[in-house]
């Protein structure tokens, strides 16, 4: 990236680097950058063919993502799931803003232990806190933990899986052995230990700061395996070979040529991890080891509901239904995305 002053037309970063490395080598500079441009063209055409092929439509040129979005929109279960998750996210954002958080932090004994009513849609708990407000305050924590955990898992999985799958050979088998070893360990005891360590070390941190590491350190293996599998199959493609032949570095090949083709898988991985993360958060908080009151999360609410099960049966149903519906929604979105990105994958 040093000498690009004499370029008259703006070039892509890819070509710039090609020029740099070619000039360093002196000979065949022209030929190499030409070949590179050609391979770019090939990659683009390949992608276009793939998209057209996946859609079963010849001639019309649509991107992979547009195509997938169309198929996804036709899937009723998946759309319902997506709409539900969106509604939950919106409620989590706006309910506490509109209503203020006073009803969830104060103590109102004059209206304790009420069942669901128009004033308090989900009823109140033994301290008179508004369960509707607490549910959406909890959703903020539960959902953000779930999405951040999924993202972290995805990023770690991409990095680990790409390195392992791209280099293959000894590196691959070594990294996969290590993964197998970790995979065999029971994750919950370790998650509990990590959460305890972090929450004691960082007593003032928000719950997300210790829940995310605990839940993602113990759950990235599957995504690393999936990404490795993708890498193994995609790196055999001609456009990867041509990029390699024209001297692109491994990091460049992976980020520019292989990863864009795994976008579908990535999105699916995210939505597959969301249910696990939500359940994991709920498990830990329910055991009293995760999010701690007065912070509210769905796990905390469930714990509360369990404590008052004999007097206040509605308190357990609020978090239970929220958790279950979110899990179901995320699963159906993941299924829908998988079908949308890979229509051939579903035979029966």
């Amino acid at each position: 990236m040093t000498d690009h002053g004499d370029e008259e037309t703006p070039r892509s970063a890819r070509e710039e680097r090609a020029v740099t490395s070619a000039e360093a080598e002196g000979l065949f500079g022209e030929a190499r950058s030409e070949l590179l441009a050609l391979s770019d063209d090939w990659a683009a055409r390949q992608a276009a063919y793939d998209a057209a092929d996946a859609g079963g439509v010849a001639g019309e040129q649509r991107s992979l993502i547009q195509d997938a979005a169309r198929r996804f929109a036709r899937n009723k279960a998946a759309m319902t799931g997506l709409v539900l998750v969106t509604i939950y996210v919106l409620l989590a954002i706006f309910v506490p803003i509109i209503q203020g958080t006073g009803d969830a932090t104060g103590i109102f004994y004059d209206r304790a232990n009420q069942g669901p009513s128009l004033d308090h849609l989900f009823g109140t708990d033994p301290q008179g806190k508004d369960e509707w407000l607490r549910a959406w305050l909890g959703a903020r924590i539960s959902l953000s933990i779930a999405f951040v955990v999924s993202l972290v898992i995805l990023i770690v999985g991409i990095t680990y899986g790409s390195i392992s799958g791209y280099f293959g050979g000894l590196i691959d088998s070594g990294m996969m052995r290590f993964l197998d070893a970790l995979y065999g360990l029971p994750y919950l005891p370790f998650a509990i230990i990590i959460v305890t360590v972090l929450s004691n070390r960082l007593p003032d941190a928000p719950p997300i700061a210790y829940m995310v590491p605990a839940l993602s350190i113990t759950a990235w293996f599957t995504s690393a395996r999936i990404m490795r599998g993708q890498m193994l199959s995609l790196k055999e493609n001609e456009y990867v070979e041509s990029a390699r032949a024209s001297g692109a570095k491994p990091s460049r090949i992976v980020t520019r040529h292989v990863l864009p083709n795994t976008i579908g898988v990535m999105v699916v991985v995210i939505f597959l991890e969301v249910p696990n993360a939500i359940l994991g958060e709920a498990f830990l908080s329910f055991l009293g080891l995760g999010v701690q009151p007065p912070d509210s999360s769905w796990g905390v609410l469930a714990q509360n509901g369990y404590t008052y099960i004999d007097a206040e049966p509605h308190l357990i149903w609020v978090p239970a239904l929220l958790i279950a519906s979110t899990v179901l929604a995320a699963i159906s979105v993941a299924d829908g995305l998988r079908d949308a990105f890979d229509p051939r994958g579903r035979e029966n």
Partner: protein
Amino acid sequence: MIFLASFLAFVLVKLMPYEPFTNPKLAPSVRENLRELYGLNKPYLVQYWDFIRDLATGNFGLSTKPGNRPVREIIGETLPTSMLLGGLAFAFAAIVGVTLGVLSALKANGIVDYVITVFATLAFAFPSFVVATVWVAGKIYFPPPIGVVEVVLPYGWDTWYDRLGPILVLGLSIMPYFTRLVRASMLEALQQEYVTTARAKGLPWRRTVFRHAFRNSLIPTVTNAGPLFAFILTGSFIIERIMVVPGVADQFIESFKQPIDSRMVLATTVLLSALIILLNLIVDVVVAWLDPRISND
């Protein structure tokens, strides 16, 4: 792998703000003696070596909870309960789950299939603590009818009547795993040519299904059983806690109450890891026995 588990557990536990003898009434000299008794004044590497040596000899040291009982004794009391709970729940889930999976594959896309799929999905989506709570609540509202004179808690592990709840709830949480896998692999097996061949040579449908399709459909179910054991373990943490089963998972969570009982945590984590690793090994052996092609890789 057990070494890896023990190492990870050790490092993590040492990171915990762990100081069991914080009682201000303790004289400094007494505290020092206690720390020496528990080996806490040694360097970490020496402590780790002691810990590994203790593991090898099956001696886990003393608990730092009141009573200072040997950790080995506590685990010896609680582990059988957990194994019984896990084993019976596994058996229940396997029998019911596989049956439902086969049924829904045979009636694919029919009403039976639909009902089973919805049931399995709901069983997966509702976390086991909700089911457990509902079960406990159910026992509060509908107490056991006959022959009970003393006060009965809605949970516990003393009679088989009490045990039914935890086993069913834990079994229910792992059942969808079997149902989904068996259904998918059964559907695939039914489309294979050997099923057509078996039918063509005049084998009755029932015999074809059970001798040919069903046997082969079990292989993927067993092969993918790895995460299952960890899943059972996760479930038993919750269920032992809610339904007051005196198992090892319940003890484990108990040992996290301040001051943290690090020996108990260490010993339990390593033991549970060893158990899961062992079970996975057994799965590998069973798979090789079921499907000789796999071991030829």
